[in-house]
């Protein structure tokens, strides 16, 4: 029995299940760095002398690989247990960062795309699904809250990855920080500077010939993130078979959509319920991207505010994106999953319908409030889906089923922005004023949400013929 095997992670008596959420968050907040990758676009574009869009391809490849690897390797993750999966995720994700750093040094774009996008993306997929099944088993009484917490970590990863990347690149770049900048820096900036100061000279020597500081930044990030991910792998535990929280008894008459049976991943993905949830997730993600991807521009165009205020608006939305994952998903434990997705879709569509009016009346506070709620529900869509899967298919292979379902995210992340930007660009090209051109985008978002709502309303319990025999599910 190796340290990494599932058997080695079985919890001993006295283990607190509240150690598992930090393990999950530790992994998710690292791989969530992908949302902050855009900070590398301009510096790397200048360093390699290629368009920014070429660098951004690494982000797109990473999201595609995230979905594909989660779908393909989900069964392996279930079989191997969370620790081995987290260590594999760490090796791929941090290894990918190091390969990308090598690509910067050698000025090879393909190596950056392969390292960060392909190898790193596989690490993200493994890391994303690795704690899901374990959390659901530890928290049968509150699966929405537990998975919401982990997936909130992914949202938090973006909040960390982006400023961390910027600060590190500034420290390592050819100019570096001036003495004045250091004296005027905030406490956290000074602390970060103190921590990395011993590594600046050796890493700069290693990165000779580069100017952006991106190579050194990627290496430091790989080191930091591996520390957090391995910490998660070290503390994670799986419950013994049949474990239940003290004093908790499963309800005798569960809700109609909450099963006590289990469905295997190979059967689950052939059921209509799986594909209905696939559409639910895809529509929810696409609709959120409509605001998130263009938040700063939208605020500036619709209300004539400065770029700084536009960026502030984008920052506020990222906070709601993170918070919504935990709050809405926790609420779903009380309302039921189908009902909460109806709220996401109906309230989301109503708020999108309100946005053109806020522009017409120049009601900025209402615009900010409405978009913040929309984005909180976008994040919540990700966070609530594992619990919805557990309700329909049982906890047995929920991680693997979740892995196959998040291909919907990859599709939405790649196709969604193109669809939305294309629609906006066409309207502007047809002479529609910029401030009003977004209205078409909002109506498109409403139609996507209506499709998602219909798919959600069609969800019915999985037929008993798909259920696993209880001895096979043990």
């Amino acid at each position, binding site marked *: 029995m190796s340290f990494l095997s599932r058997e080695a992670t079985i919890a001993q008596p006295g283990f607190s299940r509240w150690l598992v959420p930090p393990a999950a968050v*530790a992994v998710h907040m690292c791989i969530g760095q992908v949302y902050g990758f855009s900070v590398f676009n301009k510096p790397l574009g200048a360093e390699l002398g290629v368009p920014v869009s070429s660098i951004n391809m690494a982000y797109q490849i990473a999201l595609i690989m995230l979905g594909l690897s989660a779908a393909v390797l989900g069964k392996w993750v279930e079989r191997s247990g969370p620790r081995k999966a987290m260590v594999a995720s760490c090796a791929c994700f941090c290894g990918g960062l190091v390969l990308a750093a090598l690509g910067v040094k050698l000025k090879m774009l393909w190596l950056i795309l392969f390292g960060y996008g392909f190898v790193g993306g596989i690490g993200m997929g493994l890391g994303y699904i690795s704690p899901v099944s374990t959390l659901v088993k530890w928290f049968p009484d509150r699966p929405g809250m537990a998975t919401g917490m982990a997936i909130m970590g992914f949202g938090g990863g973006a909040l*960390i990855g*982006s400023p961390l990347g910027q600060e590190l690149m500034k420290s390592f770049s050819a100019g570096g920080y001036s003495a004045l900048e250091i004296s005027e820096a905030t406490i956290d900036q000074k602390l970060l500077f103190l921590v990395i100061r011993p590594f600046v000279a050796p890493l700069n020597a290693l990165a000779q010939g580069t100017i952006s500081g991106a190579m050194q930044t990627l290496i430091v990030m790989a080191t930091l993130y591996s520390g957090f991910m391995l910490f998660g792998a070290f503390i994670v535990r799986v419950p013994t078979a049949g474990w239940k929280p003290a004093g908790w008894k499963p309800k005798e008459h569960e809700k109609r959509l909450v099963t006590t049976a289990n469905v295997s991943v190979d059967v689950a993905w052939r059921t209509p319920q799986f594909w209905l949830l696939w559409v639910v997730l895809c529509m929810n993600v696409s609709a959120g991207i409509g605001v998130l991807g263009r938040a700063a521009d939208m605020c500036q165009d619709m209300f004539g505010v*400065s770029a700084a205020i536009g960026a*502030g608006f984008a920052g*506020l939305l*990222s*906070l709601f994106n993170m918070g919504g994952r935990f709050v809405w998903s926790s609420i779903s434990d009380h309302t039921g999953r189908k009902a909460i997705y109806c709220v996401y879709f109906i309230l989301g569509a109503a708020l999108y319908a309100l946005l053109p009016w806020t522009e017409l009346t120049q009601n900025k506070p209402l615009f900010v409030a409405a978009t913040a709620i929309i984005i909180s529900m976008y994040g919540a869509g990700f966070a609530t889906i594992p619990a919805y899967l557990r309700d329909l298919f049982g906890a047995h292979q929920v991680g693997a089923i979740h892995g196959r379902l998040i291909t919907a995210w990859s599709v939405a992340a790649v196709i969604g922005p193109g669809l939305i930007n294309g629609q906006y660009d066409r309207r502007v090209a047809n002479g529609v004023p910029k401030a009003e051109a977004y209205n078409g985008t909002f109506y498109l978002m409403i139609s996507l949400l209506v499709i998602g709502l219909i798919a959600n309303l069609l969800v019915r319990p999985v037929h008993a013929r798909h259920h696993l025999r209880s001895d096979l599910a043990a």
Partner: protein
Amino acid sequence: MKFKLIIAWLWIAIPLAWGVCQSVKKSLPLFRGAVISKEKK
């Protein structure tokens, strides 16, 4: 176990809190903008 729990939660809470602070700082101009526009009115 209590000590382990505190360490584990702090290990993730500190970087997350830092990230949240950075985003709050970034979003401050939005609220300052609102104050300025009210003053102008």
